[in-house]
């Protein structure tokens, strides 16, 4: 009998914890596809982050802010009434909606703001879709006294007026982006153009697990607090790990945050729920993974990317501005290929139903983004037994979406 030179992986998916590689690749995905002017800034950011990643002082500062400014840990709440009405598994909600600024996005902006402080850059920029990342960026900028410009698609500025005003109150400048489809991807283009011009004095806070290396890595790390807490809380409150996790996926930061600390727990199933829009079959959606979009390169990384046969990036459609993006974080792309996560879509109609149901049955109004995860919980829970458990990431609260829902109801203020 021969002894293998390399120890067998602890579990089937242990290799996934070693991603990305030194050049920011997640298998065939990720990387650093940027114009040369930005290479230096990204190398600098990577060095800064890697030097601080295991620095106890940096971690202590981050943890302190998460506890005393964000209000962590967020509760894991047993939605008993909703679970009973669905008649299957027990549904537990990870309450990221209770964070300061109302979503998981702040976990990342707190972390990146600490990095901005270390690099000494006086100005931050951000892109935003629904406005949650913009608000979270404007918030940390206000707290640190940094100048803050937020790029937002002109269409989203219309859809999310409340968050636009919140950002302005916080002292940020919101710059509507009129180019292209006037949504999140165009906001990101414009933020990259700003960064390439002002790279000497500007820190770019990317809001999701996409973009060029090291962004997918650091945004994942900063959000992984969600999964670490959920894992510990599950053991305490359920007495064991949950059977399934569900989170919505646009770029995919809240999903990776929840999933990552469970990646080696083979018995925990994971579901990423993309924006089905009018239905994946109609082509009017924002579900690159669930629709098996081709491989492509946009915004600095290779991933599943909705594009036409000539490689032009497709228009996307979703009720939720925060998920209205043609690509997805590269780590999700890899996790789809290796089968660690099942990626599905929920369409706008199902999302609205879930939004209303949770609001009426549990008194919790979810963000329309998070309602995608809830819509899949409605499908999954009844197929499971009442002694099984699902943790759903309630990634944000729905206050910002009241106008959108009211409009659908035909109500004008």
């Amino acid at each position: 009998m021969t002894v293998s030179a390399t120890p067998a992986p602890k579990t089937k998916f242990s290799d996934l914890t070693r991603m990305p590689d030194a050049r920011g690749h997640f298998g065939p995905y990720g990387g650093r596809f940027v114009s040369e002017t930005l290479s230096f800034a990204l190398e600098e950011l990577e060095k800064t982050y890697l030097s601080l990643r295991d620095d106890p002082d940096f971690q202590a500062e981050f943890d302190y802010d998460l506890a005393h400014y964000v209000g962590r840990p967020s509760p894991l709440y047993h939605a008993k009434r909703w679970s009973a009405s669905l008649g299957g598994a027990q549904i537990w909600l990870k309450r990221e909606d209770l964070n300061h600024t109302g979503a998981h996005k702040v976990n990342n902006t707190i972390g990146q703001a600490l990095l901005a402080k270390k690099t000494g850059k006086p100005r931050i920029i951000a892109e935003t879709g629904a406005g949650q990342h913009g608000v979270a960026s404007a918030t940390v900028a206000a707290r640190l006294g940094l100048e803050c410009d937020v790029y937002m698609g002109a269409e989203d500025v219309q859809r999310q007026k409340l968050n636009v005003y919140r950002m302005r109150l916080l002292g940020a400048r919101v710059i509507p982006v009129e180019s292209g489809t006037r949504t999140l991807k165009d906001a990101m283009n414009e933020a990259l153009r700003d960064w390439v011009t002002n790279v000497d004095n500007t820190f770019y806070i990317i809001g999701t697990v996409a973009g060029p290396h090291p962004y997918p890595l650091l945004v994942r790390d900063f959000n992984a607090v969600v999964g670490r807490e959920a894992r510990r809380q599950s053991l305490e409150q359920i007495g064991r790990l949950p059977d399934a996790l569900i989170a919505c996926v646009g770029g995919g930061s809240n999903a990776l945050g929840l999933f990552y600390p469970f990646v080696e727990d083979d018995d925990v199933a994971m579901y990423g729920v993309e924006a089905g829009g009018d239905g994946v079959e109609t082509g009017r959606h924002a579900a690159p993974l669930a629709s098996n979009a081709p491989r492509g390169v946009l915004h600095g990384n290779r991933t599943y990317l909705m594009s036409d046969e000539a490689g032009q990036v497709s228009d996307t459609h979703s009720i939720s501005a925060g998920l209205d993006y043609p690509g997805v974080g590269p780590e999700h792309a890899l996790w789809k290929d290796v089968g660690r996560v099942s990626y599905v879509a929920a369409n706008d109609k199902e999302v609205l139903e879930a939004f209303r149901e949770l609001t009426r049955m549990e008194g919790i109004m979810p963000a329309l983004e998070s309602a995608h995860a809830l819509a899949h919980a409605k499908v999954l829970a009844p197929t499971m037994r009442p002694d099984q458990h699902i943790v759903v990431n309630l990634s944000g609260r729905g206050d910002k979406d009241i106008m959108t829902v009211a409009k659908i109801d035909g109500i004008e203020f």
Partner: protein
Amino acid sequence: MNRIDQRFSELKQQGRKALIPYITAGDPAPQYTVGFMHALVEAGADVIELGVPFSDPMADGPVIQKACERALKQGTRLIDLMQMVKEFRQTDTTTPIVLMGYLNPIERIGYENFADQAASAGVDGVLIVDMPPEEADEIGPLLKSRDLAAIFLVAPTTSNERAATICAHGEGYLYYVSLKGVTGAATLNADDVAEHLAPLRGMTDLPLCVGFGIRDGATAAEVAKVADGVIVGSALVNRIAESQDAPETIAGQLKSVLAEMRTAMDA
């Protein structure tokens, strides 16, 4: 010998500097592009950079963004560019052509397919704005085996260490980006450019060409004093935008813009 190398060696013998115009293919409509290319050659172009329109041109300013939008509205695809180059080659077999654009259209049709089509159409070089040498492992050998030059960018922010890597991978010429910003941004500073080009001379024998911020004969002449070539894009594309409703007048205008630069550079 690749047409780019051939052209630069001729220019060197003549003691002249290269004038390299950029236009976006398919702008304002695909049927005009080949005519524009010939007009540029008549006005003194040494190499032509033919832009591949892309839906998300992240490194470009508003002028070239709008050019992409016009070209895409007319349905211009990467495979149509191959046809344009083929047509151009029917009457011009010497002017080097470089395809310039973003990676996704190439990724979508496949690297090998792209390299085959480009080589058989008569393309000489490829500059992919969002693909630094570190990400070119896969496409690099496919281009090289078909004698297509992989052209890379060097920026004011590029460290000497990175510049050495880029020089080691680069072929054809090095494209020095004169300023931090997008295409069509502020005017460049020629002294600053000269300062950045100096260390590159020690790293490579590749011709050093400078783009971004060259608007007229005066800036072209200034840059030509310190560089081996001058790249001009937005100044030409602006003329296309202004006259998009009278496309028959555009070729003449492109010629006059470029001829002014040629004269200033050669004076």
